[in-house]
């Protein structure tokens, strides 16, 4: 989907362009993510003895997508909402690229942080264009710039502006509405996005579609994203890192998906991983990321370079093949993989 990046290239995380401090000054070029730091953040609701969130400290590197995973009521959503101060922390410090968020006007802060929720929450009385243009208008963008941005974003998620601009939310399917929800959050090009189970209410097929699409988008945009989910598979698929949270938002493990699968910190984390950790790890590694064996002359069953090693294993079993060819998008054979390549890759922890 990304048209320029070569399949093997991993965009370095945390490439913060110069001048990220400057706001809405005519640039439509994408602003990459900002580093978020939460230090000793707690939330105690009035009238409750137990804190909902207790001294939560975490650094989220710029441009990374961090999934908060945990059971219902563990405080993961509360923690996320303290970043844009929909919930005010009782104590602690939250900074974005070093800027103290708790000293800002909360409404202005929220216009700089994209926010996507499961129920989407599009405004039914406003057209799609008006929904997307909401934050740019509040920030005082002029008409032309706003209209151009709306069209650009509609394009970005495959909704043809001419057809969708002046439609209303009720005329869109659930998946289309959620795409609009995402681009509404992206409209003013915020460095940070908060997403609360954004794909949780869609059917499994649409969900996977939205996840893949979103992942491709994020590879280009490199926003800093806090993504709350209770679906561990989703966290594996999307997260650069996963934070497994326990009660009162205690961080049980904060690591890359591969490390969480390979070395779960304790039984609690293991329970989230579930069975088949080794297979799941194969699912994190792309065929094109490995050193391929030289291609032989025999014609073999093939997978694409962007297929995961899990797909390779599937092909090995399905075709009872010793070797699988890896082809690029033009169908040219890049090399081959065998079963030993898979186990070696799993041993070395992948090349993410």
């Amino acid at each position: 989907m990304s048209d320029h990046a070569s399949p093997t290239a991993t965009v370095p995380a945390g490439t913060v362009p110069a001048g990220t401090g400057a706001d809405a000054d005519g640039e439509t070029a994408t602003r990459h993510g900002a580093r978020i730091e939460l230090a000793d953040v707690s939330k105690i609701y009035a009238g409750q003895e137990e804190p909902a969130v207790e001294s939560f400290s975490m650094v989220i590197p710029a441009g990374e997508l961090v999934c908060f995973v945990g059971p219902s009521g563990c405080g993961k959503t509360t923690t996320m909402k303290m970043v844009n101060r929909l919930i005010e922390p009782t104590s602690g410090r939250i900074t974005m690229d070093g800027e103290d968020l708790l000293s800002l006007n909360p409404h202005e802060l929220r216009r700089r942080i994209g926010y996507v929720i499961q129920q989407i929450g599009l405004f039914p009385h406003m057209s799609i264009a008006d929904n997307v243009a909401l934050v740019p208008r509040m920030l005082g963008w002029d008409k032309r710039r706003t209209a151009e941005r709306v069209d650009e974003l509609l394009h970005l998620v495959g909704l043809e502006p001419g057809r969708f601009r002046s439609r209303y939310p009720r005329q869109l399917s659930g998946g289309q509405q959620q795409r609009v929800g995402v681009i509404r959050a992206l409209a003013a090009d915020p460095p940070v996005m908060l997403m609360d189970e954004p794909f949780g209410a869609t059917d499994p097929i649409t969900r996977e579609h939205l996840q893949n699409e979103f992942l491709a988008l994020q590879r280009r945009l490199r926003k800093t994203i806090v993504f709350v989910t209770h679906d561990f598979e989703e966290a594996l698929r999307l997260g650069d890192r996963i934070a497994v949270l326990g009660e009162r938002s205690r961080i049980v493990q904060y690591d890359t998906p591969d490390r969480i699968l390979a070395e779960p910190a304790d039984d609690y984390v293991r329970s989230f991983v579930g069975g088949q950790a080794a297979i799941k790890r194969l699912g994190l590694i792309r065929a094109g990321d490995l050193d391929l064996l030289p291609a032989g002359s025999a014609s073999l069953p093939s997978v694409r370079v962007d297929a995961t090693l899990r797909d390779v294993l599937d092909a090995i079993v399905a075709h009872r093949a010793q070797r699988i060819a890896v082809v690029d998008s033009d169908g040219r054979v890049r090399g081959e993989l065998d079963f030993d390549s898979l186990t070696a890759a799993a041993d070395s922890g992948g090349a993410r």
Partner: protein
Amino acid sequence: MDRFLSYVGRHTDDLLQQGLEHATVVGTAIVIATVLGVALGVTTWDRPMGRAAAVATTGTFLTIPSFALLGLLIPLLGLGWTPTVVALVVYSLLPITRNTIVGLREVAPAILEAARGTGMGPTRTLLRVQLPLAWPLILTGIRVSTQLTVGIAAIAAYVAGPGLGNEIFDGLSRLGSKNAINQALAGTLGVIVLALAFDLLFFAVRRLTTPRGLRV
């Protein structure tokens, strides 16, 4: 029938004049009641005690017999337009207030959450999101109030108020004399025609002011 029509023919100017006054007094009262009722709804909709009190109070107003209310207003406000408008406002409050409360409560929490999350303040949210979404229901309340007060306004002639009530009261006070019934009947039919005209107006207003996204 012939005599009724010829009565109406001879008094067309009077009837139109009084119909116009009738419409004006109702319209004035409805505008004031809309401002008050929507304000009351906006300030109480998310407070259980407040909204219960608002609905109970404005509901109680409706149980006061119109004769009694108009009569009781004389020592305070005298005769004529003022007590008429005040009484009609009092009767209009319940439907408008209650529908404002219901309309605002029906706005999905997710929509308010999204509004807050995108950095809209309370005032902007109210004006750009909540009231537009509640508007069809509020408008229904205004329409019910209008129907209600078109009838009640006829009683206003009792306090020397304006409107078609004067025809009715005049006619009824001269029962037995020539044209008494015709006069009362003309006033009554005038009220009905006016009510229908208002309804037609609301039909148009509804079409013109309901956000398009809510009609699709």
